C-alpha cells in the first residue's frame, strides 16, 4: 500500500521549489550588493534550520489539530506561559515543567472543544486571553526568574556533529509525529475525524479522546518551542509567542494541509515551515521596508495557493 501520508506530493514539491527560488532571489541580492553567495553558505543554512526549528515545532503540533478540522489560537500564550513557568518555577525540571504546562493547556482546549463542543477557533482564543491574563499577573506579582536553564540553552543553540541542536530536536519530534500519523491507530483516527467525525465516532473511534490528545500534543509542541525560544534568547518574556501563530498556520497550509481537516502530509508542513522562515529571512536581509514585506509575504502565500492549494471542492 502506497503511503499517502508521507509521500512527496504536489504541494511539497512546490514548496521545495519555492524555497530554492527564494534563496536564489536572496543570493542575487547579496551578489548585487557585493556580499557573495552567503545565502548558500553552510553557516547561513544551518542558522536558518535552527530558527526554523521553533516554527517547525509549532507547525507540527498545529498540524495535528488542523488535520482534525480545528485550530489552536492559544499558541502564542501557551508558548509564553510554558517558557515563563519553566524559567521561573522549573529550576532543574524546567523542560518537564514547560511540557506539563503545554499539555495542561492543550487538555483544557481539547476538553472545551470535544466535550463542550465550543468551536476551537473561539475556545482557544479565550484560553489564549486567559493565559495572557495569568502571565500578566505572574509578571507583576513578584520577581519571577526568567533566566533559562543550561539545558534549554543547549537545546536551542548547541551544536552536535555540526548540526544545530534545535534542528535535531525538531527532527526527533517530527519523527514521532510522522510515526504517530502514519503508523498508529490514532493517526488514522485523526484523518478520519477531520473528514467526517460522525462516521469516525460510529466506527467506534473514541473521538473525544483523540481530539483531546491532539490538542495536548499541540500544546506540548508549543511548550517545547517555548523552551527552545527561551533557551535561544536565554530568557522567557511576555510576547515571545506573538510572532508564531499566523506563520505557523501559514506553514501548515502552504505545506498542503487542508484547513478544514482530513488531508495533509507532514513533509509538506516541514517544507512549508522552511519556506516561511527563509522568506522572512530573505525579506529581512534585503532590508525590505515593512510595507513591502507584508505585501510580498501575502502575495507569496497567494501564489503558492494558486499553484496547488486550490480546493477541488469537498469530496462526496
Amino acid at each position, binding site marked *: 500500500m502506497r503511503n499517502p501520508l508521507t509521500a512527496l506530493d504536489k504541494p511539497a514539491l512546490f514548496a521545495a521549489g519555492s524555497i530554492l527560488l527564494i534563496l536564489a532571489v536572496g543570493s542575487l541580492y547579496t551578489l548585487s550588493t557585493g556580499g557573495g553567495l552567503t545565502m548558500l553558505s553552510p553557516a547561513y543554512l544551518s542558522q536558518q534550520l535552527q530558527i526554523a526549528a521553533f516554527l517547525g515545532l509549532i507547525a507540527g503540533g498545529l498540524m495535528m489539530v488542523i488535520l482534525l478540522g480545528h485550530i489552536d489560537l492559544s499558541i502564542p500564550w501557551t508558548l509564553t506561559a510554558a517558557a515563563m513557568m519553566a524559567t521561573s518555577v522549573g529550576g532543574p525540571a524546567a523542560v518537564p515543567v514547560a511540557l506539563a504546562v503545554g499539555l495542561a493547556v492543550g487538555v483544557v482546549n481539547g476538553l472545551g472543544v470535544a466535550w463542550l*463542543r*465550543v468551536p476551537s477557533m473561539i475556545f482557544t482564543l*479565550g484560553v489564549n486571553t486567559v493565559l495572557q491574563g495569568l502571565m500578566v499577573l505572574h509578571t507583576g506579582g513578584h520577581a519571577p526568574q526568567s533566566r533559562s536553564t543550561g539545558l534549554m540553552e543547549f537545546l536551542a543553540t548547541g551544536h552536535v556533529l555540526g548540526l544545530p541542536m534545535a534542528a535535531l530536536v525538531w527532527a526527533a519530534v517530527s519523527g514521532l509525529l510522522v510515526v504517530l500519523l502514519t503508523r498508529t491507530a490514532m493517526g488514522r483516527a485523526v484523518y478520519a475525524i477531520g473528514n467526517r467525525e460522525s462516521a469516525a465516532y460510529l466506527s467506534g473511534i473514541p473521538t473525544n479522546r483523540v481530539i483531546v490528545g491532539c490538542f495536548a500534543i499541540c500544546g506540548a509542541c508549543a511548550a517545547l518551542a517555548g523552551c527552545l525560544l527561551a533557551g535561544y534568547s536565554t530568557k522567557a518574556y511576555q510576547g515571545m509567542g506573538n510572532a508564531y501563530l499566523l506563520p505557523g498556520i501559514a506553514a501548515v497550509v502552504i505545506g498542503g494541509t487542508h484547513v478544514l481537516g482530513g488531508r495533509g502530509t507532514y513533509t509538506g508542513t516541514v517544507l512549508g515551515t522552511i519556506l516561511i522562515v527563509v522568506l522572512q529571512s530573505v525579506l529581512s536581509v534585503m532590508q525590505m521596508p515593512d510595507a513591502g514585506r507584508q505585501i510580498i509575504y501575502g502575495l507569496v502565500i*497567494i501564489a503558492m495557493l494558486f499553484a496547488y492549494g486550490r480546493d477541488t471542492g469537498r469530496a462526496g
Partner: protein
Amino acid sequence: MRAALSRNLGLLLAVGLFAALYGLYSAQHPRGGSAALLVQNSNESFALILAAMAQTVPVLTGGLDLSVGPLMTLVNCLASRVLSGGPVELAFGILACLAAGTLGGLVNGCLVVYGRMQPIIATLATGAVYIGIALFLRPTPGGAVNADLSAMLTYDLAETAAVLGVFDGGQAAWFQPFAPIPVPLLLVLAVLLFVWVPFRGTEMGRGCYAVGSSEGSAYLSGIDVDRSRLAAYTLAGLFAAMAGLYLALQTGTGNADAPQAGAYTLNSIAAVVIGGTSLFGGSGGVVGSLFGALVLRSISFNFRVFDEASWLGALADPLLQPLFEGMVLLIAVSLGAARALRIRNRLQLFG
C-alpha cells in the same frame, strides 16, 4: 414559538449578557444612562460592531475572513488621505473609501470563488497585503479628516444639526427630544435596515445561508453558489470599509497599526460566535453579531467603574483585568455548551 426560541437562543443569550454587563456598568457609572455616556459608548463600539458584521457574512457561508481588521485599517488610512476639502470632495472621498473596501472584499471573494482557495488562508494572505498597502499609505500615523464631517457623524443629532445648520442649528423646540440620540446608533440601524435587511431578503442573501448550510445541496438546488459567495465577501468588504471609515472620523487620522488590525479580526470572530452565528455556517445573522460586539465591549466598560473597595473590587485591579476579560469571553462562548451537554442523541453533536 419554541422552535423560534431555540433557533434564536444564541441571539437571546447575547442580548441577555449585554443587558447584564451594560446594566451593571450603567448602575455603577455616575452618569449612567445619560446621553453623553450613550454617545461615548456607541462611539467606542461602532467600529467593532461593523467589523463583527463584516465577519458575519462570510461566516454564514461557512467561510471566515481574517482580513477584516487589515481591510478596515487600509480604509482607515485611505480615509485619512481623502477625507478633506469641500462637500463634493468629501462625498467623493467617502465613496472612494467604501469602494476601496468593497473592492478588497471582492478580491477576497474572487480568490475564494475563482481561485478556489480556503477562505482562512486566502484572507490571511490578503490581510498581510492590505496591511502592507495601508503602511504605504500611512508610513506613520497622521493625516487630517474634515472636522465638521467627523463632528457630524460621531456625536449626537444636536451636533449634526449644528454642523449642518438645520433645525435652527439644532435648537428647534420640536427637535429637542431627538437631539440627544447618538448618531453612531442611527448609523448602525441604517446599515441594518438599508444594507442587511435587503441583502438578506434577496435570493443571493438566502443563497449565502444555503451555501453555508450545505454547499452541495445549494448547488444541486440551482443556487448560484459562486455569486452568493462572492457577494458575501464583497459585502464583508463594504462593512469593513464602513468600520475603517468610522475609525478615521472618530480619531481624525489614519494609523496602519497591525496589532490593532489583528485585535479587530479576532474580536470580530468572538463577537460573531457570542452573537449566535454558527462558525460552520448556515445559521445566525448580523444582529446577533451586533450584540456580540456589544458584549465584548461592555466587559471592559466595567473595569472603569468599579472601586477597589466595592463588592466587585477585583475588577479594578489592573493586573487582573486581562484575566477577567479572558474568563468572561470563555464563559460567554461556553454558555452555548449547555446545549452540547443537554443533547440526548450524540450524533447531533457532529452537526
